[in-house]
Structure formats: C-alpha cells, structure tokens
C-alpha cells in the first residue's frame, strides 16, 4: 500500500513537473446541429480521454505534445481532429445505423455489427409500429428481411405466424424467444374448442385448438427498447438444441444514469373494422318459387319464419339439379349476415406510462400499461402489464440487474372459429342462406338456433347467447443478471430467469332445454362448464465466462490481434401442469357452476430438462478481419436411449474490405460467411413407450398408442451455411443519398432427422412409429436497403426495402413413401420427396376427353366420349353438366410465396411533422380457398351467377358449379393466387413540444395512424393473409372460415416530462 502511494505520488510529481498539460473543451454535434452525448474523445495514440455530456460538451486535460483528438461513438464515423486551439468543436457524421449498432444475439457478447460475420436484424422501438394489439410478433411483420411473419388471424391475443428462414421441422416454426438474454415461454394455450386436425403426426399429445392464446402476446410492446433477430442455424448454434428455428431477442427499456427522471405518457385509442376483401355471395337463386316469384317450401307454400321458433322451412329444390339454373332474382329481403356478425368500430384503448431515470451507478425504469381491445367478432381482450427494470453497480465492475414483468390478461374473444365445427359462428354465418337472418329471435326472445328448419348448426348470435369462453392469464417473468469484470481480461456473467404463468380457460355452454327448440343447440343441451387450468414454469439459467486478450497489450506479441473466449453453461427446465374439470348438466336456472353437475376430471403433466455447454473462440485482426469457431454440447431429457449429448459445431469469418482502401463513396464494406448446426428437441416424452389411459365404463384402462413412441429418438439437426455482404455508401456530395446501407445474404440449409410418424405394418397392431424420418432442404436470399434519400433541415426522406425469397423441399423420407396429411374439407397435403413442404395435393378436372391415368388407363372410354365436351378447359358431361375429375392426387399449389417484400418510407417535414408508411407485398403464394368450396356445396358462392356454355346452352348451371365441390376433395378449382399488396401502416405524427412551450414538457407528440388501410389482391375470399394454422409448417395457405384481419384507425398522444 505504501509503495503504491509512493508510486502515485511520484507519478503525480513527474506529470506536474516534467509534462506540461493543457485543457481542451468543445462541443460535439450531429449534422443537424443537435448535441451528441456519450461520444468518446481520446488523444490519438494514448489512453487519455473523456466523453461528452448530455449537452454534447467535453473537457479534457491533454499533454502539450498532443496533436490530434479522435472522436468516436456508436452510429458515428470515427473522426480525427487537429488540436488547433483550446476549443475543438466537431460535427460527427452518422455511419449508417445498420452497420454500426452493437448486437448481442448469436454472438454471445456485445459486438459491433461491423464485426459480426452473419446477418443479425435489429429493429429499434421507434421503428416498431404503434399497433393496437401491442404485441411484438405483430410489430415485426414485414420488418425482418427474409422472414415470413404473417398476421393469420384477427383474434386478439393470438400471435402472428412466424417462419424466419425456411422450414426446419414439421412440428412448429416458432423461434426461440429471449428477453434480455433469458429464454421465456412463447407457446400458445387453447382458447376455444379443441381440434385434432393439427395432430402433426406426433402421437396424441399435439391435439391443439384452432383458437389460440399466445404467451408471446403477453409481452408489452411499450416496454421494448430494441429487438434482434437471427434467423437460422448458422447464427444460432450457440443456442444449441433449441436454436434451429432462429432466435428473437427482446431488450426491455432501461433507465438512463444521467440523474434526470423522465416520465413518458402514451395514450392511444383506435377503432377496428373487419377486412371483407373480395368476398361475395350469389345474387340469384334456383329454388322453386310461387307465381309471384317467392321461394316456396317443400309443402309448396311461401317461405315464412314460424311465429314461435322463428325458423323458416327449407326451400324446395328442383326435382333434379341437372337442369337447374341459378338465374332467379330474390324477391325476399336479403340479409348481410357476414356484415352483421362482425362488430362495427370495435374500440381499443391502450395507455402506458413509463417512469425512468437513475444516478451514477443506479438506474430504474417502471412501465405500467393497460390494453383494452374489443374484438371485431366476439368478446374483448384486456391486458395489464407492470414492468420494473433496476440496475446498479454494487461495487466496482460488479453490476446487478433485475427485470420483473407482471402480466394479467382476460380474454373473452376465443372460440370463434374452427373448421367443420357446426357451432363455429363464422362457419355458420358463411353457410346461411341469404334470405335468412342470423340475428333473428324467437317469440320468447332467444336467438334462434339456426334460422332454417333442419339445420343442426347454430348461429353466431345464438352461440354468443348460450356459450361463453374466457381465458384469464396471470404471469410473472423475473430475470436477474449479475455481471462482474474483476480484471480487464475477464468477465463473468450470470443470468437466471423464472417465468411462470397460470392460465385458466373456461368454456360455458348454458342450459338450452327450455328454449322453443329443446332438441337443437350446442351440445350438450343440458349445459356444460369446462375449466382448463394450465400452470407452466420455465427456468433458464446461463453462466458465461469471457476471457479477452489483446496480443499487443496483454501478451506482448506484436500483431494487432484481439482474442475473445467464451465458455458458457446453459440450463433450462420446463414444468407443465394441466388440470381439466368438466361438469355436464345444469339445472334450468342459474347459477351455472360445477355444483350439481356430472363432473369429469383429467390431468396432464410434463417435465423437461435440458442443459448444454458452449465454448467459442474468436480472433480479430485489427479492424480488418475476424474469425471465430465454437462448439455447443447439449444434453436433454427428451433425447433417446443413453441420453447421449449432441454436438453442434460452428464457424464464421468476415473481412472488412473497406479497410483496404480509402473511398469517400464506400464508407463500409464487409464480406462475411458463417456455418453452423442447431437443433430442435423431440417432444418431452416422445422417447417413452407409454400406455395411454382412458375410460371404459366407470373404470379406467390402459393401452398402447397406435402411434408407437420411439426410445431411440434423436434431436432434429439443422445445418446451415450463409454468405453475405454489408455495404454503407453514399452517392455524390450534398444532402441526398448520403447515408445508404445495403445488406444481402444467401443461405442454404439442410435439416436432418426431422421427426415424423412413419407407417408400420398395421398387422403389428400399431400403425406408425415416431422416428427421425425425414430430411428437409431449403435455401433462400434476403436483402435490405436503407437509404436517407434526402436529408435537409426542412425535409428528410428515409426509404427502406426488405426482401426475402426462399424455398423448402422434402429431401428424403426414410421409407421413400409419400405421407398424406389433412382431410377432406380442411385442405389436403402430401409430404413427398422433392416436393415443396406444405404443397397442396388434390385432383383436377380432366383437360381432355382422352386423358389417361398414371397407369395409362383411359378415364373415359371411347364409347362415352360423345357425352363429354370441354368447358372452360374442363371436361364436362353434356347432359348431367357435371365436371369429370382425375382420381390421382397431384400437387395443385404451393402456399410458399415466390418472394415477400416490404417498402418503408419516412418523411419528416419542418422537423415536427413526420409521415411513415409500410407497404407489404407477398407475391406468388397460393391459397386453398376451402371456404369457397363449402359455399359451392351450399350453392352460395357468387360464382353460381356466372353463365357457362354447355352443350350449346349458355346458362348459370347449378350442377356444373355444384360438381366442382367434388365432395370436398381438394381440387384445382379452389386454388387461388394469394398474392397481395397491403398498406400495413400509415402514421402521421406531429411533434408540438415547441408549440406548447412548457418548460417541464420535453416531448409532446400527436399521431394518427392507420393499419391495413388497403389491400390489393385477386383473392376472392376475405383475407389472403388469414389462411394458415399457427406456426404449422404443413398447414399454410388454407382458408377454412378463417378469422380475417381488420383495418385500424388510431389516434395517439405521447407526452414526455
């Protein structure tokens, strides 16, 4: 101690006596004259330096010998300035935000984007749209080049389908979601009736609901500072056996340690209206009519609703459909049932307040937000979020941060759809005849079950009266982060997160046996109450050690190399519990609760543990180039026999060509390449050969599943290589085209041992076994361009393009056999070697009367040829007027777009007024319009009005169209172009801070925005985007009474104090 003091004292004297010093001050501003804080100012060639304060000023004591100062800061070009006097002021130029941000995801430690060797996409809070849903998945639609993020449902609380980069698996495309470095739960829970339609060939456990409530939607958008996205295995190897689908990392808001307290208040109100697209119904009919042209019943009397039940008899059909023509005008009053079922001007309120601030060594940010969203169809969604982020430096270089998020939501919007579900409001609304009114009531004031006698389905209005869904969710996410840098070459980082939610879903069917139609309604008619209780706890703990060495400084080796070594241990545990309690049979009078009912209970539990080690070594050679390589080893409770670990290697490299030459035009040019493997885990218990349990009479039983589980199951492994370049450049001098950034990446990947049930000989007693059966292959290209086209004081224009194209095919199926999926009435798919994943398979009308089958047999023998002719390219029977179809399944359409593209524009006028637009373009994808096929069954499609010429007669022949229905078998007639161009967002905001001229208000902004304002598409249904099952790679592009998106107008006010 004494020695040290002596040394310091000597040094002091030496400095004072031997080295003369002077003090330099100055101010750093950007090209618009705004002060820049946190810019580092260093005497060139030394470690003497300072940083600018909030007003952009700095003060620095330098030796007299100092000649030059180097100014550097994130987003700004490093600039040298001569010391010409005691004051050195400087204007720094921005380099281009894409290239100079610091990113974490995929690299493990904060790294400048200039030195990252794979593509990492970043979206900061100001670029996130102000959507009323306030969920991160919706906010990312169109923002990530290469990713297909689509809003597939207008139901509040249901997330967008996310497909980041090609298809890696046949289970779910959902990427891993991290919040501040810790994985959180991002599954979905049921929010409606169960549907086994999406049982992805993986046994019985994956029966899911078509109405979902997403745990991703719990996260509060107003608390998000920044989002980083990595899209594939090349970048996600460090996440090991769960990284193959890519990673979305969310960074929450932190306070600033400037000593100032900031209060930001945000209030938004919006109205939503459904997008009806090109949806049309037939304007004419072919039913039997009386002399005055009114439709008659089978009893030959004019149709009229019963005065008691309100039901109308069925219309009389012509004795034979063969000659029926859809050309009779309705004399009846027609109802816009589809219009009636949707709410007009559904209102959403979204308010949030953030208080943040801090002092030296301490920061805090508290956000409270409340969302109340009315569904355009049914019920509403209410969510309250409280988030608290606290950070402090406990002692020197020891930082601790706590991030708490508490969420409560109450969602009554579920249960609205579900294909082939006769109680689905959308289904029955579409299929109701036009002269019937679904909002009709009977003589005692109940809504009619269905306005037509003989229908077993129920209308939306009846369903709302007698059924109620509710999903309440309480969730706490708590993350801690401890970070210690004991010495400059060592950093120890420990993160732990606990994420728990309790989700209580209830489904109440009221007692209906005292209605005027006591045998009709929602079964069971004596009522039923179901409580489905989910409780899931996810724990993620991550310990990382970083060793950093500068060869020159630390090792005395005179080459300009920096080394970073990362060693991590990562542990995840998930515990899932589900209890279902169901009571059937209420008394005719309230209360409708479980007491007194016939109760049934069930439970399902699941535990899952995985952990892994990561070692990664990175070398940087000066500013010029860098290489890194690493390996991740994973263990999991879901891996097969012996629990052998899986090893995922990775490597990458970049070179900054712009360092090799000096160019005014090209400010940055990096070429990069990366390769890596990552995995997707099997289902938690897929490796156990277990018995299913169910009931036989009053006793239980056990039996083997007909899909056998497999004790030898391996992880699904995706290996990916990508190559790309990032360029920042400018065109000429002046205020236009000064800040241009372009990035492009080509990627190619192969996913092996993808899990799928493969057929066994049924005579063994089981029909299939879950196994690593399939290899998938995909490749694609993504690019982005950001340009500050014009940047003047009074006017600036920023422009951006995001582009992505990819193709995924089935490369190999272990037994070489096609796997048929789906069912009639809900879209049909086949997994076939060499075919696109998720391609529709079906039949097509014969094109020629002499067409043959694959075996060379003629469909129509010569003797019958004279009965057929070609109509609109289809073989049609001349007298029956029915279309003749092929009988062999073939690919009939691909839901994968040829490309998707987004155009972003932002105009700023007079600094205060800004206009932002986002235009999304999805091109070349096909949608199977199953809704239209059902409408063909019921003679309701607008197509029925179109005359066709058959056998010389031109009329709207009913049998022709009805035969295209083809008993719900998938066929080419219902494959439509799903391309669309959509104005996703238009925001006009006005900053009136100066107008207010109040000292305590430092930000006041008013914004008016619209979402989904217009859509240009040829698609004949309501919404081509709302046509997929959530994150299911095999059920994309099928519209079966889908819940369409909506158009939003929103008014927002932001005040900052």
């Amino acid at each position, binding site marked *: 101690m004494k020695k040290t003091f002596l040394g310091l004292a000597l040094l002091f004297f030496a400095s004072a006596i031997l080295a003369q010093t002077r003090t330099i001050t100055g101010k750093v501003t950007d090209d618009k004259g705004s002060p820049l804080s946190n810019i580092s100012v260093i005497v060139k060639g030394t470690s003497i330096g300072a940083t600018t304060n909030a007003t952009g000023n700095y003060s620095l004591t330098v030796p007299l010998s100092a000649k030059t100062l180097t100014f550097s800061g994130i987003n700004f070009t490093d600039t040298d300035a001569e010391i010409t006097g005691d004051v050195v002021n400087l204007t720094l130029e921005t380099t281009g935000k894409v290239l100079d941000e610091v990113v974490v995801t995929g690299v493990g430690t904060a790294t400048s984007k200039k030195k990252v060797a794979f593509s990492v996409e970043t979206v900061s809070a100001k670029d996130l749209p102000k959507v009323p849903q306030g969920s991160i998945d919706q906010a990312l639609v169109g923002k990530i080049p290469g990713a297909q993020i689509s809003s597939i449902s207008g139901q509040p609380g249901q997330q967008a389908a996310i497909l980041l980069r090609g298809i890696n698996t046949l289970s779910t495309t959902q990427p891993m979601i991290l919040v501040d470095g810790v994985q959180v739960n991002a599954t979905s829970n049921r929010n409606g009736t169960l549907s086994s339609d999406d049982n992805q060939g993986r046994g019985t456990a994956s029966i899911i609901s078509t109405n979902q409530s997403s745990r991703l939607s719990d996260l509060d958008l107003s608390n998000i500072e920044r989002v980083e996205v990595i899209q594939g295995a090349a970048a996600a190897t460090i996440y090991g056996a769960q990284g193959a689908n890519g990673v979305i990392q969310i960074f929450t808001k932190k306070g600033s340690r400037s000593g100032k307290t900031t209060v930001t208040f945000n209030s938004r109100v919006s109205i939503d209206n459904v997008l009806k697209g090109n949806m049309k119904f037939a304007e004419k009919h072919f039913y039997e009519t009386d002399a005055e042209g009114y439709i008659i019943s089978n009893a030959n009397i004019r149709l009229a609703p019963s005065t008691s039940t309100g039901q109308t008899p069925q219309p009389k059909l012509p004795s034979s459909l063969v000659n029926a023509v859809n050309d009779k005008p309705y004399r009846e009053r027609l109802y816009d049932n589809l219009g009636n079922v949707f709410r007009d001007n559904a209102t959403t309120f979204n308010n949030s307040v953030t208080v943040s601030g801090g002092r030296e060594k301490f920061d805090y940010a508290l956000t409270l937000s409340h969302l109340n969203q009315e569904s355009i169809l049914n019920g509403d969604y209410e969510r309250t979020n409280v988030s608290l982020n606290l950070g402090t430096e406990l002692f020197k270089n020891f930082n601790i941060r706590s991030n708490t998020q508490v969420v409560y939501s109450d969602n009554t919007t579920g249960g609205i759809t579900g294909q082939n579900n006769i109680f689905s409001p959308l289904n029955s609304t579409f299929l109701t005849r036009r002269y019937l009114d679904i909002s009709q009531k009977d003589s005692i004031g109940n809504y009619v079950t269905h306005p037509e006698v003989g229908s077993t389905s129920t209308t939306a209005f009846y369903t709302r009266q007698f059924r109620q869904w509710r999903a309440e969710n309480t969730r706490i996410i708590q993350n801690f982060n401890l970070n210690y840098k004991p010495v400059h070459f060592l950093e120890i980082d420990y993160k732990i997160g606990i994420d728990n939610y309790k989700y209580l879903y209830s489904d109440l069917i009221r007692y209906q046996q005292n209605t005027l139609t006591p045998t009709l309604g929602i079964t069971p008619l004596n009522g039923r109450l179901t409580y489905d209780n989910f409780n899931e706890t996810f724990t993620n703990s991550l310990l990382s050690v970083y060793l950093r060495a500068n060869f020159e400084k630390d090792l005395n080796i005179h080459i300009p190399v920096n080394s970073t070594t990362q060693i991590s241990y990562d542990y995840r545990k998930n515990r899932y519990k589900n209890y279902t309690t169901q009571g059937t049979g209420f008394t005719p009078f309230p209360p409708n609760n479980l007491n007194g009912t016939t109760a049934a209970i069930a439970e399902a539990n699941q535990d899952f543990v995985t952990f892994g080690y990561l070692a990664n070594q990175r070398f940087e050679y000066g500013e010029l180039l860098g290489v890194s390589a690493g390996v991740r080893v994973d263990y999991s409770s879901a891996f097969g026999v012996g629990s052998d670990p899986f090893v995922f290697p990775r490597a990458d490299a970049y070179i900054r060509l712009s360092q090799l030459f000096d160019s005014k035009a090209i400010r940055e040019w990096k070429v990069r390449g990366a390769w890596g493997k990552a995995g997707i885990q099997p289902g938690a218990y897929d490796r156990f050969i277990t*018995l299913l349990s169910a009931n036989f009479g009053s006793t239980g039983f056990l039996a083997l599943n007909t899909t056998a589980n497999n004790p030898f199951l391996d992880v699904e492994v995706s290996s990916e290589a990508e190559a790309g370049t990032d360029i920042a450049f400018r065109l000429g001098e002046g205020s236009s085209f000064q800040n241009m950034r372009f990035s492009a990446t080509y990627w190619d990947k192969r996913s092996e041992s993808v899990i799928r049930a493969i057929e066994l000989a049924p005579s*063994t*007693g089981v029909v299939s076994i879950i196994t690593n059966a399939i290899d998938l292959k995909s490749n694609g290209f993504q690019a982005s361009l950001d340009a500050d086209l014009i940047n003047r004081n009074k006017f600036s224009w920023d422009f951006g393009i995001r582009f992505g194209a990819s193709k995924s095919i089935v490369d190999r199926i272990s037994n070489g056999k096609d796997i048929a999926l789906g069912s009639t009435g809900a879209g049909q798919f086949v997994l076939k070697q060499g075919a696109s994943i998720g391609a529709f398979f079906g039949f097509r009308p014969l094109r020629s009367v002499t067409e043959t089958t694959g075996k060379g047999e003629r469909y129509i023998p010569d003797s019958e040829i004279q009965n057929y002719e070609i109509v609109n390219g289809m073989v049609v029977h001349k007298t029956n007027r029915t279309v003749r179809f092929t009988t062999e399944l073939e690919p009939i359409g691909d839901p994968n777009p040829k490309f998707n593209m987004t155009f972003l524009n932002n105009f700023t006028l007079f600094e205060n007024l800004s206009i932002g637009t986002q235009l999304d373009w999805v091109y070349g994808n096909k949608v199977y319009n199953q809704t239209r096929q059902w409408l063909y069954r019921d003679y309701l499609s607008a197509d029925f009005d179109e005359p066709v010429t058959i056998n010389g007669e031109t009329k709207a022949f009913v049998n022709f169209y009805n035969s295209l229905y083809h008993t719900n078998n998938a066929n080419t007639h219902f494959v439509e172009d799903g391309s669309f161009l959509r104005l996703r967002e238009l925001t006009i905001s006005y900053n009136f801070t100066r107008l207010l001229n109040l000292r305590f208000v430092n930000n006041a902004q008013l914004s008016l925005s619209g979402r989904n304002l217009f859509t240009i598409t040829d698609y004949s249904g309501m919404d081509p985007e709302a046509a997929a099952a959530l994150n299911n790679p095999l059920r994309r592009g099928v519209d079966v009474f889908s819940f369409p998106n909506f158009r939003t107008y929103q008014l927002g006010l932001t005040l900052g104090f």
Partner: protein
Amino acid sequence: MIMKKIVLILIAGTLLVFASCKKDFLELSPYDQVPQDQAITDEAGMVAAVNGMYAQLRSNNLYGRSLPLYGDLMADNAFISTTNSNRYLIEYNYTFISTNAFSSATWASAYNAILRANNIINASVTSPNANQLKGEALTIRALMYFNLVNWYAKPYTVDPNAEGVPLVLTYDALLKPSRAKVSEVYAQIDKDLADAFASLTSTSKNSSFVTKYVARALQARVALFKGDWAAAKTFAQDVVANGGYTLTNASNLVNYWRNAGPVTTKVETIFEITSDAVNNNGSNSLSYFYDQAGYGDAIGADDLYNKYADTDARIGLFITGTRAGLTVRIVNKYPNTNSAADKDDTKVIRYAEVLLTLAEAAYRTNDEVNARLYLNQLAQKRDPSFTGYISTGAALLDDIILERRKELAFEGMRYLDLQRLGQDVTRVNINNNYVGVTPLLIAASNFRRVFPIPQDELDANPNIGQNNGY
C-alpha cells in the same frame, strides 16, 4: 491476483458440480402415462389392460360400427338411401380398392385389438384372477382373427389352403409378418378358444365381459364356419345345456332391443360390446348410421322386411317412415341415438344364434328332427302364432338359413353366412331400394367378395401378398 484465482476456482467448481449430476436429472418419466414395461406386472395392471382391450372393440372400425354394418350392407339386408352422408358407399357398391379407408381401418383396428390381447396373454402375472383375464384376452384374440380371416381371406369352406391373414401373437413394432393359411388361422382360433374355455369361469359382471360360455358359443360359430358340424353341434349343445341362457318373450322383444346396456339375466345376449353415455362413438356409432335421428343412411331392405309374418315380433324392429321421398323400413334395433342416459351396445353373439347353429349342425349331421326342434324353438318364440317349420331336406336348410337372416339381421352375420355357404349376394330391388349404380348381383366368385389387403400394410410390409384381383 488472489481474487482472480478465487473466481476461476469458483467457476470451475460450479461447472463441475453441474456436469457431475447430469444423468440423474435427465431421467424424467411421464406422470400420466405408465411406461409399457411397468404396465402389466400385477392384477390391477392386467384388469386395466383387459378394459383397454374391450374398449378397442368399440372402435367404429370394429363392433362400434363397421363390422356389423358391412355384414348387412354388403349383403341383401340393408341399403343406403340416396340421401346419405357419403359413408360406406364404396363398400355398398363394391368399388373398393386397396387404399379404401374403412376396410383399411378395420384391419388396423383389429390388429390393434390383437396387440392389446397379446400383451395380456403374454404377461407373466400369476394372481388368482390372471387365468380368467388371460382367457378373456384369448377369446377376444380369437374373435378378431375370426373376423379378419373372414373379411380378408377366402372362406374356409371354399378353400382352407388359401392365403389367410398374418398371425401376430407377440408385440413387435418392427415385425413384417407374412400371411398364414386360412386353415392355420382357424387352428389358432380353435386353440385360443379351447385355452380360453379351460381358463375362464362361468360368471361375469354382465354380458359385456367374456365368460366360459362366451368362448363356447364362439367355438360353435367357428366350427360352423369350418363346416365341422359335429364340433359345432357339441359346442352349441353345451351352451344350450349348461350356459343358462334363455330367449325373451315375443312381447318383450322390442323392449329387449330398446335396452341400451349390458344384461346380467342371461336373456338373449351372450356377449356384447358396451357403449354408455360417456364412452361412445357419437356420430360415428352404428346406431347413428341406422337411426333417422342420426345420419340414418342405412335402411332395411323391403325384400327382408317382406319375409316377416305380420304376427312376427321381429317386425316391430322396423319402423315404416319416409326418406328421400320413399316409404322405407327404418331399422329399430339401435334406437338410443338421442338418449342422454345410455347408448346402444353392439351384440356380438346371442343365444338365438347358438340355437340356429345347433339346428344347422343337426341338419348337417342328418338329424332333421332335432334341426326342426331347435329351429322352431326360436321361430315360434318370435312368432307365437307360427305353427312351426315342417320342411325336410334342402328346403329345411333353406329355412334355417332364412331364419338366420331374419333373426340376425343388422347384426353383421348375413354376409359372413353367404361367404361360408359360397352363395352369391342377390339384392332384390323392391320399392326402388337400389338405385341404378348399385350392383344387384355379386357372384360368389367375384374377387371383391373379400376385402383387399390394405395398401398401408403392403407399403410397410414386403412379406405380404395382395388378394387376387386387386
């Protein structure tokens, strides 16, 4: 420096601790499912497995719908209305190929029931009731093989050396079994039923569980299908003499069929597959397919209906109604589609069948007196004003077969009888029962008289061959 060392040691220590305990905490077993190797280790597990085996028989691909439906729809007892839900038209019209959904599903479901039975038969449990439980499994395995060999292979009476179905007696998911000969399959059925008879007791909770005399009655049926008349007579006589079963009175016949649950009275029912208010096939049930409150697609043929005398109680098992503009005979054997209390069971074997088997076996062994005796015992019970059959020779056999048709209609036996007798299916088109595309004559020699081996099986199993013609 010391600080740094401490930190490094701590880190290394932590990593080691984590690494050393990995194997233990990765062993997570499912909570709510019992691993296979722990399932049938005691009597309780065996009881659960036996229940699971019975539950499989309720599958709509087996006794829950398809098996009894094929037996009448593909014969001459039932037809499908032109107003229909598009189900079973392929079977009804004989247009099936190897990818046909229903016949493929029946194959897979039957073998799944066999798997469930195998696991019980092969379990090494030695508790007091283990023999009874194994006997139940042996009986069910035999019953499944009986159905498989009759639907997917030529009748024994036509060619016992024809290719039968694979005999799978142990569980192995990766097995690729080849077809055994019809006679080999019957040998296994005989053995299983004999073993079952030896290990079963004669009491059970109710008629939905297998007893000694369930096995005996099935032995009689199997012997009849082999043309082993002496054995058929012996087995049937044993049931008649010692089974304790009775026929119901004519006045009670409709009520007997209205009762949806199993019985303990030994009246009529020997063995049935139970469905109740909670565990049932819903809209995929047999009753839903006959009952006009359900799909109601299948209708009783007028040709059959016209064969009952007006005084025959069995005419009450038809309701005359309207469907698709026709006056039709709606089947009333399964009337509980709309009942919230209980759903219709499917009868597998009834006492009446045993009497008819005994009558036929007597006739075949040149004992016409007893043949008429047993035949009239049933016929006169059903129609008290009937004076009884007096026919002899070939006419008597025709009467026995006719009585079988009338008695066992809509229980799935008719087609199987035509198969074993080597007879054509002849549909008599009265009152427009059959529309233009429906074949009225399906010769006994038609290759579609046996189902194709399912394509799923052919795809996954290289050791199996297809039936001729497909």
